């Protein structure tokens, strides 16, 4: 039993931290963007990602033959948590979902075209699984892909494609085999985001940034750009989710916000009395700090379960996501309770306590218990696969 990083891991963590302090840039790193700070969506952020790539920090867990270092996922975990702690863009979908899937299942052509660009941060992706009728039930996607001479013709609609308004490439699931069963009729495609027939419509959110709907009208995709084996798309999607556990949902923003709350309680007054002396405030903060330690314990659990490249730690990571997303919302909720009436002042104005950090975070964290597999879906997974309860929901 050991709760410390190994000396090598600790050295890496220290190196990353020092580098991030040295490369601090308020334009790139903005805590007020909350979850959206992970996107590499402006020229400054893309330049930052190139610097990260030059350090060799993209694709560390990839096989050496594809430019990786074949090191344990824990290094990507350390890096991702550090980036999130600094509100910097994160290593993202390219290295994780797309890169890892191409390495396992992609043709040589696709590997050669995309893997080097991913490692050098020259390409951004959008991921299109969700549709109006396919949310939690992602396998219900209906975007139509009809076989035509030399390729596929796509028609239909995607929902919630984050990054579609700035990405170069679109990683899309579509139904190629409507006669096959729900899970066996889907294939994955790579499409240039500026392809004629693709229409991106912004879908503004209360989380201060936007996601998108994307409409497909006769979008032609050459055969070469169907990823892997026709009809295996849903299996690849599920597998990539499992491979992505290390960079999935970070704890650092919660630890950051808790620290901001603690500092606020220590330095502010209400009716002339220090806020930290209020017994309710003390109770709330004691429980937030405790639950944050539990989240960290749950993340230690999935890190350890994943060591040595064994089976993906599906259950520990479901438990971590379930517990941590609800804690994340609670921290914001209780921080607003502690700030009282002033908590209602919209973020970004001088009048607001902490410039409205918690007002903004309260809105921005709303989706955490829905996106990336909702809390209910995580509980279904735990109930069935961990506790062995009957499958009936």
């Amino acid at each position, binding site marked *: *039993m*050991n*709760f*410390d*990083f*190994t000396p090598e*891991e600790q050295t890496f963590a220290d190196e990353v931290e020092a580098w991030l302090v040295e490369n601090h840039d308020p334009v790139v790193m903005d805590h007020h963007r909350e979850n959206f700070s992970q996107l590499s969506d402006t020229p400054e952020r893309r330049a930052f990602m190139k610097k990260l790539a030059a350090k060799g920090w993209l694709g560390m867990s990839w096989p050496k033959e594809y430019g990786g270092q074949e090191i344990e996922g*824990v290094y990507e975990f350390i890096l991702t948590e550090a980036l999130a702690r600094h509100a910097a863009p994160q290593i993202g979908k390219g290295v994780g979902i797309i890169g890892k899937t191409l390495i396992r299942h992609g043709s040589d052509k696709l590997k050669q075209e995309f893997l080097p660009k991913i490692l050098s941060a020259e390409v951004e992706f959008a991921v299109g699984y969700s549709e109006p009728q396919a949310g939690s039930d992602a396998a219900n996607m209906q975007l139509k892909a009809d076989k035509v001479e030399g390729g596929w013709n796509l028609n239909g609609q995607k929902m919630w494609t984050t990054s579609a308004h700035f990405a170069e490439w679109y990683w899309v699931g579509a139904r190629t085999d409507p006669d096959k069963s729900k899970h066996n009729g889907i294939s994955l495609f790579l499409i240039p985001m500026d392809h004629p027939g693709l229409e991106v419509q912004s879908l503004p959110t209360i989380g201060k940034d936007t996601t998108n709907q994307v409409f497909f009208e006769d979008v032609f995709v050459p055969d070469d750009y169907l990823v892997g084996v026709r009809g295996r798309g849903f299996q690849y999607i599920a597998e990539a989710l499992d491979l992505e556990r290390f960079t999935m949902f970070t704890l650092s923003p919660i630890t950051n916000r808790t620290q901001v709350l*603690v500092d606020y*309680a*220590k330095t502010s007054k209400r009716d002339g009395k220090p806020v*930290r002396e209020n017994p309710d405030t*003390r*109770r709330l*903060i*004691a*429980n937030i*700090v*405790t*639950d944050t*330690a*539990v*989240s960290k*314990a*749950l993340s*230690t*659990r999935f*890190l*350890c379960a994943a*060591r040595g490249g064994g089976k993906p730690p599906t259950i*520990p990571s479901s*438990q971590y996501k*379930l*517990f941590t997303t609800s804690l994340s919302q609670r921290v914001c909720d209780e921080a607003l309770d502690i700030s009282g009436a002033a908590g209602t002042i919209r973020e970004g104005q001088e009048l607001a306590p902490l410039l409205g950090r918690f007002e903004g975070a309260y809105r921005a964290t709303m989706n955490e218990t829905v996106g990336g597999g909702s809390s*209910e879906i*995580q*509980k*279904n997974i*735990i*109930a*069935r696969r*961990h*506790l*062995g*309860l*009957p*499958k*009936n*929901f």
Partner: protein
Amino acid sequence: MDLDLSEEQEAIRDMTHSLLEEYSSVEAVRIAEDDPKGVPEALWKQLSEGGLVGVLIPEEFGGGGLGMVEAALIYEEIGRAMAPTPHFVSGVMSASVMLEAGSEAQKLAWLPKIASGEAVLTPAWIEPERGYGEVGVQLEAKREGDDFVLSGTKLSVNYAGVAERLLVLARSEDGVEILLVDPHAEGVRLTHYLSQSGEPHYKVDFDGVRVPTSDRVGEAGNGWATWDTVMHRGIVLLAAQAIGGAARCLEETVEYAKVRVQFDKPLGAFQALAHYMADASTHIDGGRVLVHEAAWNAAEGRSIARFAPMAKLFACNTYQQTTKVCAQIWGGVAFTIEYDVQMFFRRAKELQLSWWDTPYLEELIAADVLD
């Protein structure tokens, strides 16, 4: 970072598990409930001979000389088995007070006997209408010559009926003292009362009890510092106990939910119930790692000022919440004496209220973070 147990640690856990399976069966636990002695003799003998009572006592004093991680593993098993034993009051709290503050002579006199199970010692700490902090210790220890004279009342003195000595927290003009008192001494009166869990609790009245100053454990007025240090280690083990109880209660409930059928379906097929169990398992699995982290930090000699109260707070809340939803899942039978789930239900609440309760633990954490 790794959560693996060493071979030795696994062996200790497995040995404790099978020993308790045999000597702390549900039947044995039921018989011990409400009994003034409260510990099955065979169980105590096995725990002592197996070296488990002396787990934290160094080998030079006849103990096993093991660390906090091993002790936490043992306590998770104690929690699972609901083992009725003065292990905690004697082998953990009293032994640790002795180790922390006792004179060489006191250690030699008591630690080997504690380790071998020959003597049970138990702290007398809580007072009527007083809280868990230092100010709660008001039982008077008046200095008269070479004696302290004790007057006052203690509650929640667990297993006093089998104790050879009480470790009485009392207040002298110097502050809090910890005094070794013979429960059979003149002026000491023990009254057994029933507790929620059925573990033997005693009210102890002290009426002018004379205690020689040589029976003080530690420096004058230093009793609270000793107690506070020992409590921080003790509550990590109680947190492990809570996780063990919660884990077993959930396991039994999950099995029941697979076989009990209503509306033509097993209960576990109702998502409302399945989600209770998924939540409980998440809290238990996370709580266990937090407890291990606290125990490991203690074993490494690092501060557990924050980890220890966090571990007990979370583990006891988890135990209490888990037994509550488990009872809900069992339905009406949970309310009957015949079914076992009520045994976990009562123990969970008692453990949450005992040895520093929720408000006290929250305040310890808040003070560490905010002050």
